[in-house]
């Protein structure tokens, strides 16, 4: 695990610079140098007066599988939302409202995907789906399955 900085919250009090044993918190971009950050150290997280630093984990728990009926209901909603997105897409050059409807439906569709099987990029649902498209997009899928 390593720490990351929420730049919108950081108040530049720099307590993280004082406590960091490796200098990972002191960078020209303002973001933490993930390569230098010590696994599990979290001194900066506790020292920050603005709660701008947080832990990013390397691994995530396996989620309990949801009931098939729930998954089917979410799949039906996902398809309805992307259908509406497609309709709005075809009008988005002409109308701000259509553009907003398209984006909003994409966000709603993503939420259905998240709650069904695909919350985590490294979750089994996402990996299974990646394996199913391996022939179609071999390079991307191989890279993802290797690094996830």
């Amino acid at each position, binding site marked *: 695990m390593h720490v990351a900085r929420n730049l919108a919250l950081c108040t530049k009090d720099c307590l993280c610079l004082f406590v960091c044993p490796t200098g990972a918190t002191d960078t020209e971009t303002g973001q933490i140098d993930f390569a230098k950050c010590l696994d599990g150290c979290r001194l900066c997280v506790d020292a920050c007066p603005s709660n701008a630093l947080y832990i990013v984990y390397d691994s995530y728990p396996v989620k309990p599988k949801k009931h098939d009926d729930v998954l089917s209901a979410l799949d039906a909603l*996902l398809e*309805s939302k*992307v259908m509406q997105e497609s309709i709005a897409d075809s*009008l988005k050059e002409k109308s*701000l409202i259509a553009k907003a*409807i398209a*984006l909003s439906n994409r966000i*709603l569709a993503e939420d*259905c995907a998240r709650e069904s099987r695909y919350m985590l990029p490294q979750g089994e649902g996402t990996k299974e789906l990646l394996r199913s498209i391996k022939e179609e997009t071999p390079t991307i899928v191989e890279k993802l399955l290797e690094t996830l």
Partner: protein
Amino acid sequence: MEKVEHSPKAMSAIYSNAAKAAEKQMRFEEATLFSDLSAHFDGKSEKKSATSIDEVKPFITEDLTSLYKEAEALALKEGERGVLRCTTWGKKVTAIHKSLLDRYEKQGDALLEGNNVYVCEACGFINVSPAVPQICPICKAPASRFLQIK
């Protein structure tokens, strides 16, 4: 795991969601790869040529009268609070689509006069107003999560 068939556009949404999740985990390389997959499936999806945005209305009606209701009942039955959260926000955002399109049908572009259009990137809430909302009325995300549509 059971075999599930998703349309290309649904695949695009699944992978754009994965790209966002990877980005939140600061896994930028994976985020880019997922975005590439999302674009690939978006390119494969059937292109519509709608003549009016009102063509989404029958789908909105179906979502509100049946699909969200079914999903909500099943979420309650199975104790799936996350799914219930998704349907609670989703049906509210969808009801707002309906009222927005009804107003747009009556007023046309006069609806936009003196107003901007904002979308909450957390839940999809659409707001037509002169200034960005301070908080999302649906999901309570802060002003910084709103995107102005231009």
